[in-house]
């Protein structure tokens, strides 16, 4: 092969791999991303049962009950409430009245089944999505978080 042909063959190989990778990333981005919803979002827009989503809000005070390894609690954004269930051990920082983000899906009966409840190393953690959502709905009280930190 001449020098030019060698270069062309290498470049063609590059182009093929990059094209494949780009396609792959785009397809994955379309199918594998998870949207963040507040309970009100779900009430307003509706979410297909079984579609993986993230649900964020505050754990309603007095709503957390536990039978064996099954935890039931209510996620609220101040306007709409949604009952959620998680089977397993909740993170250490899961508390009533504090923010929570749960991964899972809406069941046909309209409640939320969490496959994973996210917590953070930091106890005054508020997911950014949640903070913005609460701000948007006028429920954001930064003092709560500050109090939580110095508790």
């Amino acid at each position, binding site marked *: 092969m001449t020098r030019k042909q*060698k270069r062309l063959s290498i470049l063609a190989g590059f182009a093929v791999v990059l094209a494949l990778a780009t396609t792959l990333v785009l397809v994955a981005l379309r199918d594998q*991303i998870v949207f963040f919803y507040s309970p009100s979002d779900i009430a307003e827009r509706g979410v297909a049962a079984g579609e993986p989503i993230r649900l964020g809000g505050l754990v309603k005070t007095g709503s957390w009950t536990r039978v064996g390894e099954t935890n039931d609690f209510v996620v609220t954004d101040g306007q709409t409430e949604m009952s959620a269930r998680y089977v397993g051990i909740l993170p250490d920082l899961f508390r009533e009245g504090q923010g929570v983000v749960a991964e899972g899906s809406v069941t046909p009966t309209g409640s939320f089944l969490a496959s994973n409840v996210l917590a953070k*190393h930091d106890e005054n953690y508020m997911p950014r999505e949640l903070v913005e959502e609460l701000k948007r709905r006028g429920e954001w009280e930064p003092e709560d978080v500050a109090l939580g930190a110095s508790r």
Partner: protein
Amino acid sequence: MSIELGHFALVLAFAIASVSAVVGLGFWKSGERIAGFLQQASILQFVLIGAAFAVLVQAFVLSDFSLALAVNHSHSDKPLLYRITGVWGNHEGSMLLWVLILVLFGAAVAAFGRQLPRDLLSLVLGMQSLLTAAFAGFTVFTSNPFERMNPAPLQGMDLNPVLQDIGLAIHPPLLYIGYVGFSVCFSFAIAALISGRIDAAWARWVRPWTLLSWVFLTLGISMGSYWAYYELGWGGWWFWDPVENASFMPWLAGTALLHSALVMEKRNAMKVWTVFLAIITFSLSLLGTFLVRSGILTSVHTFASDPTRGLVILTMLAILIGGAFSLFAFRASSLRQGGLFAPISREGSLILNNLFLATATGAILVGTLYPLVLDALTGRSISVGAPFFDLTFAAIMVPLLIVLPFGPFLAWKRGDLVAVTQRLAGAAGLALFVAILIFALSGASISLAPLGLLLGFWVGFGAIAELIDRARIGRLPFRESMRRLFGLPRTAWATAIAHLGVGVTVIGVVSVTAWETERVLTMNVGDVTEIAGYSIAFDGIQDVPGPNFVSEEGTFSVTAPDGGTRTAHPERRIYTASGQPTTEAAILTYGFSQVYMQLGEDGSGESHVVRLWYKPYVTLIWIGTLIMAAGGLLSLSYRRLRVGAPAKAARPGERTVPAE
């Protein structure tokens, strides 16, 4: 008093770094005197920052609560180790550690760089000083660790309990050495662009720094993964969380750099690409350190974030990274290309390696930043989680792993693929045999797992096959081939060992992903349960006081299938200073596999929720990374590649290329 001295040392280091940056980048052509000044200034910066850091450590050890940082992140009841590690368990202190490592590398270049041409040395040290000035300045002006608190409280607020672990002593320093080490490669790249001179000798000077940083980054990521695995109590070892991605991207780019620098050193080709990789690797390291801190992305692992400084950080990153790439755009064409080779050759395989690693880096970057972009464009919050990364990363890695064993077998310039395939046939056959054997023994269920194992064994055996082939074991008398085996250059051993590590990690990842079992159940004291053949009895629970926490400690007897019984103590702790609860998992290691137990909150009466995992061959994941790092260290110890080793052959093209 000493705190003010530390503060003063930090400010002085900032001032010296600023002067050095101007002198180095402005007068790099001026020869010996400028280079000598910069060498002394670099060592002085290290001494000053070292003193500042020592002062901070002293204040934490002595629990000096007139220091605001100690008040916020320490407590006099904390064990000594955690009082020391608490220094970098927060934003300000970790910044100072970052700068300390930066100046350590600057001083190391100054000390070991006597062989470097004066102009190159001046440019590199000038660039290092510029980085030091930028980040020491950032520390002084926005994140000053030496701020006093008046009146001083009697007691501190304690360090986040999750961080009170040996992991904080190991993981951040290793990771930072890895991140910051790439700054040297970055400075060398900038120096090459400014001076317009780049050759095989340049690659040889950069190589040890790349290797060193890569080894530390590998260890840092690996230790971080193990720490998260046992501390978070989720049983997972990798979450594709933004912080993890941020550390993984420079690793992938650094791995690519390691390989492309090889081509440049041996064949004087791929110059522009290597310079580009050096810039991008450190840019990703900066992104790794700061993007998460800026508060733009949230992560489970962030513990030192402060969104208020986000804008400053982003501006600094934009100037540094943007400046570097602008320079690259203007000057890259002045770097002459060289070295002809066929697509099927060692060079070709290393290009392929770079192509896949760079693509993987790109895919992870897209996945990590996509939520930001979508949020900015449409206002919708999304998360790109494990499914995205598993799919794209695996799809890109599989072809890389398939071709990996071919690389070291191929000759430079022009390789013979058919001959190499024949020489690898043994490794392929053995890998296939083992994979089928495991497939049959594990119940022959149809899944991707045996294929994944096949890939892991293929990479591992392929690496060993290279050594066997080169030593001609089986084709020469045994003693003769042993002599050849141990006479092989260390780089050949290093390559084989590092690639073997990749195979071992792949095997660990595949087996734990495919054959892990998990159970969540409620247990009363006296109950016995079973997971993967291990019988687990709940013997009791008691309160145990710790130094700065109270622990509720469960006692479990775990009986292995072969009969041995061991005791496990998963805990739930309440830290007295902060009132924060943490869960401490109990992990029992059997061979390469682990039984992982997590204790939940108590229910009614004596019952507790217990989460159990059986993780087959999970430790291979980290053992593999240790093997990779060992390979890197071995290569680093190779005399010919040492920084101080005589570096002749500055003229490209005339150097004889060893036929290895």
